[in-house]
């Protein structure tokens, strides 16, 4: 079963119809485990119980960048390999990624108020993530602006690849600039500096969020395929109606 076998939309629909309930169940289980571990994690000596926002804020932030990465791969699939479902994947992922980015900004803002004393700060990390959010919104606007989905796909693919330059900027912003946001504690040279008691729930939540994205993405791709079929049927119907009246 190679990637090209999934290129057939009907086969993709039947396959995901079988896989999706299991994926959703697995997501729910992992989320339950992760939330339980987050609730029972110890308090931080400095931040107290507020540190537990980290278990929601950080996975959202990681996912916001992962989704743009997935969209970039789909964009390459559209432009280079002309994979039939690549643009379906890209169109489905954009609102999901925008939601993750928005949640990352909001949970981070709520965490910042007790920790830094401010809801917002124009430092490099927050600014670059806000720019990522604006690019998500621009991408969604571009998808909706062009009538034909396959032409919209190519334009969106180019914009996705151009916007991918933001991802390393976000990742290294805390190293390159003097930021209020703390530097990297997990994905850094020399390994994570986070204590095991916090690292394990964080990784479990990250895995749960990734599976959540996979579930939502497959469901959204199914919806997009069905939406395109409805559109094709409407076009056929309109053509037949005009033929009958002519």
């Amino acid at each position, binding site marked *: 079963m190679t990637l090209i076998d999934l290129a057939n939309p009907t086969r993709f629909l039947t396959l995901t119809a079988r896989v999706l309930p299991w994926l959703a169940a697995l997501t729910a289980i992992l989320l339950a485990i992760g939330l339980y571990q987050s609730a029972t994690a110890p308090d931080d000596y400095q931040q107290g119980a507020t540190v537990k926002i980290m278990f929601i804020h950080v996975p959202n932030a990681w996912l916001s960048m992962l989704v743009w990465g997935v969209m970039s791969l789909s964009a390459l699939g559209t432009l280079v390999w002309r994979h039939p479902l690549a643009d379906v994947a890209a169109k489905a992922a954009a609102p999901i990624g925008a939601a993750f980015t928005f949640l990352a900004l909001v949970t981070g803002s709520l965490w910042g108020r007790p920790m830094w004393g401010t809801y917002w700060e124009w430092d490099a990390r927050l600014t670059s993530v806000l720019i990522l959010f*604006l*690019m998500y919104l621009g991408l969604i*606007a571009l998808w909706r602006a062009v009538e034909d989905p396959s032409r919209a796909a190519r*334009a969106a*693919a180019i914009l996705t690849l151009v916007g991918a330059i933001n991802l390393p900027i976000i990742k290294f912003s805390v190293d390159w600039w003097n930021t209020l946001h703390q530097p990297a504690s997990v994905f850094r040279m020399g390994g994570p500096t986070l204590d095991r008691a916090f690292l394990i729930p964080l990784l479990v939540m990250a895995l749960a969020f990734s599976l959540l994205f996979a579930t939502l993405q497959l469901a959204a791709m199914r919806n997009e395929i069905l939406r395109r079929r409805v559109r094709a049927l409407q076009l056929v119907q309109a053509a037949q109606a005009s033929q009958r009246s002519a």
Partner: protein
Amino acid sequence: MTALLSLIRRDIRIALRVGGGALIGVLFFLTVVVLMPFAVGPDLALLTRLGPSILWLGALLASLLTLDRLFLADHDDGSLDLIVMSRTPLELACAAKALAHWIAAGLPLIVATPVLGLLLNLDASSTSAVALTLLAGTPALTFTGMIGAALAVTLHRGGLLLAVLVLPLSIPVLIFGVAASEAAITGPLSFGTPFSILCALSLASFVIGPFAAAASLRHGLD
């Protein structure tokens, strides 16, 4: 080479004509700079403090406004299809068009900066610092804006979408442009660092912009 030069000459000539967009940008720049003192109040010290930022913001918005003219007129009369189908590489043709657009619409903004600096109570050295950073930064705005212009060329009412698409890519140019101006005017910080990053952004956009714009035109016009 002569094909590109004639493309540049043609674009400049069209832009400077009556219906062209060259001086509309300068007028919009003037409008923004004139409106700012009404918004923030006539306090001259405050205007001096905000001066570089107001000039940079006005220049960015003015170049954003004139961007859709980059491809629109050619698309309407069909010459864009001829450019896409011609033997010169489309990337070079896009770069030539962007260069012509910068000469016709970006350079007048820089020339207007000293005059508008007077309105904002900036002295000669401050204004020349801002003009220098604009000289380094407006090519980046034009070349990255070209990407949005190419994406939006086939949309009829694509002007606002173009601004939405181009804006996130222009923010770093604005940040470093204002940082360089502030460093030259007040700063304990060095002027060289943000200025060299600004130049780097422009140089990178000379490469990325034409490639992305050419890809958009090829995929969008078929």
